[in-house]
């Protein structure tokens, strides 16, 4: 086992699951292509095989040297935060921060950009430590206004309008306002 830790084994298990899932799903399109000997599965399966070999190399490296970086590697980032600094509250904050954008993205289709965005901006500001309500509301309004001004009024970019009332109606109202403002200039 050497310097292998549970975290290393967990990491390897995630990669192995990834390979297994992609390999299993490759049977769904395992059909011959008349003009190409290796078919549609040739390339992805070859990549998966190389990935397994490299994964084994990585496990071997971790068993010999642990998590330490190789000497002479360039472009390494110092993204990990010391474990000792972590508290339950801060972990909960970062987990919420990771999940919030996914919730926002899924809400775009039913709720639309115009209704969902102010709430998202305000939550992000609060999660990042701003607690003063005036600042939260003011900065939210400023960012929202800048985005609407740039993408809706100036660039006329199509943004999700939502499918559910009253959000869809609000998007319609925003678009009518935008058209009126544009026609004034």
């Amino acid at each position, binding site marked *: 086992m050497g310097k292998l830790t549970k975290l290393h084994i967990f990491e390897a298990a995630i*990669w192995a699951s*990834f390979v297994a899932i*992609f390999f299993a*799903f*490759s049977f769904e*399109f395992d*059909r011959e292509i008349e*003009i*190409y*000997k*290796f*078919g*549609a599965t040739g*390339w*992805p399966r070859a*990549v998966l095989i*190389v*990935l397994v070999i*490299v*994964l084994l*190399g990585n496990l071997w490296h971790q068993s*010999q*040297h642990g*998590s*330490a*970086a*190789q*000497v*002479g*590697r*360039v*472009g*390494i980032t110092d*993204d*990990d935060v010391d474990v000792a*600094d*972590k508290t339950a509250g*801060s972990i909960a904050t*970062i987990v919420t*921060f*990771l999940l919030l*954008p996914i919730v*926002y*993205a*899924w809400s*775009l289709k039913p709720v639309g*950009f115009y209704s969902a965005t102010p709430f*998202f*901006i305000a939550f*992000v500001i609060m999660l*990042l*430590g*701003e607690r003063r309500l005036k600042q939260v509301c003011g*900065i939210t309004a400023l*960012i929202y206004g800048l*985005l609407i001004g740039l993408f809706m009024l100036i660039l006329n*970019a*199509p*943004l*999700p309008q939502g499918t559910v009332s009253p959000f869809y109606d609000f998007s319609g109202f925003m678009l009518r306002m935008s058209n009126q403002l544009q026609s004034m200039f």
Partner: protein
Amino acid sequence: MFDNFIAGTTALFGDPVSIAIFIFGVLGGMLFGAIPGVSMLTLAAILLPFTAGLEPAQGVMLFAVIYCTGTYGGAITAILFNIPGAPENAPTAFDGYPMTKKGMAGKAVGAAVLCSAIGGTASALLMMTATEPLAQWAISNIGPPEIFALVFFGLAVASSVGGNTIWKGWMSVLLGLMIATIGQDPVGGINRYNFGLSDLAAGIAFVPAILGFFAVSEIFVQAEKKAFGKYNAPKLSVDFPSFAELWAHKIAVVRSIIVGFFCGILPGIGATLAAFMGYGEAVRWSKEKEKFGTGKLEGVISSETANNAATGAAMIPLLALGLPGGALTAIMVAVFQFHDMEPGPLVFYNSPELIWVVFAAMFYANVSILFIGLIETKTIMQLLRIPFHYLAPMILMLASIGAYIGRGLVLDVVVMFGAGIVGFLLRRSGYSIAGIVLGIILGKIGEQNFAQGMQMVHYDLVTYMSRPICFILIVAGAITLATSIYKALSPSNNPQKQA
């Protein structure tokens, strides 16, 4: 050539509409390149429908100018926020961001301004003098086997930079290659890994993936540091490199121009690989290899010279062969098609004025980087004064809009945030985000050219390796790979104590 250039210049600056479009392109490219979360591709996607109303020369010229200045603009965010504006700026962040953390942001941005202008201008001059002969050479010597060989070499170089170990560098690249297999296969058009979602049939669009892996993951990383009380605001400084400092890197500049131009000229390769290879070659030939990645000016110089040197070269396959060299040149093909034109050899004969207006505009756009870039730098650097808790939602929103606009799919926003979470977790574990992104970009190109190459040589590897360029590139890639593995296995390159 000089007469044509003068004619192009006259046509460009003799028409007020063309002047307005040129200025808009220069400023728009710089601005969208330099705003974290959006990129020149976002601007290009938004502007594309409007170009239908422009003259063909004006439309193509607009995107050519955006390409030049946007490639430079992306370096600003890479240096200041560790968020490359485009994939071609990813290697710039390797040394640019550490320089910012050391309070040397001004010097890094100043070097990016100067080297982008030098690389781009040299490339524009080479493009003007050599487009036709280079296109002829490319037609007769470069085919799918050579392009696949270059992709292999590029991936070998990319795996050796970024990532804590060679293993993690390769795993990152291979993950990118697997993501690129989602969607239709490039030979038979068979759907792969769409998991029942019809929107995935077209594959993972690389703009949301890039925004997720670079911009969103960086916001998550900084948010984590802030939550744990470890966040340090970047230090603001305006301190441009001296002439002596730049002159000391003249060889790196010349080498990056050659590397960048060569990569740019090859269809489908573009500026991204140019930047990685420019950076990789700088590391390879440096006597201070260990200092790369810690804030070495040469890293910024090599990457930024190479990616801008590729911009002019990327126009050669587009204009001479009708083959786009990257995402933005692919959008230019759409501009041609809007006007019932096809880029290719006939354009030189049917529309020489279009060619020379574009060439002249690219030359002046690169020169303008030097002047406007220096002014813009001082303005953009003020972004560092904005508190992170106000800047982060702005970046996330711009990225969301940037991801959505390309195809008008909410799925792309979901993919972007998903990529952000995956990128955040992988970065914390020592994987290379730049490697993943390069894998995504080169995956489809690599597979397509491998398949075509194999068909061409009737699946005979001896015939394949008997092509001189293939042989050189495959051997060079294999040597790069073998050297990396040797280093990975060598005890002298691995610490004895666990970090």
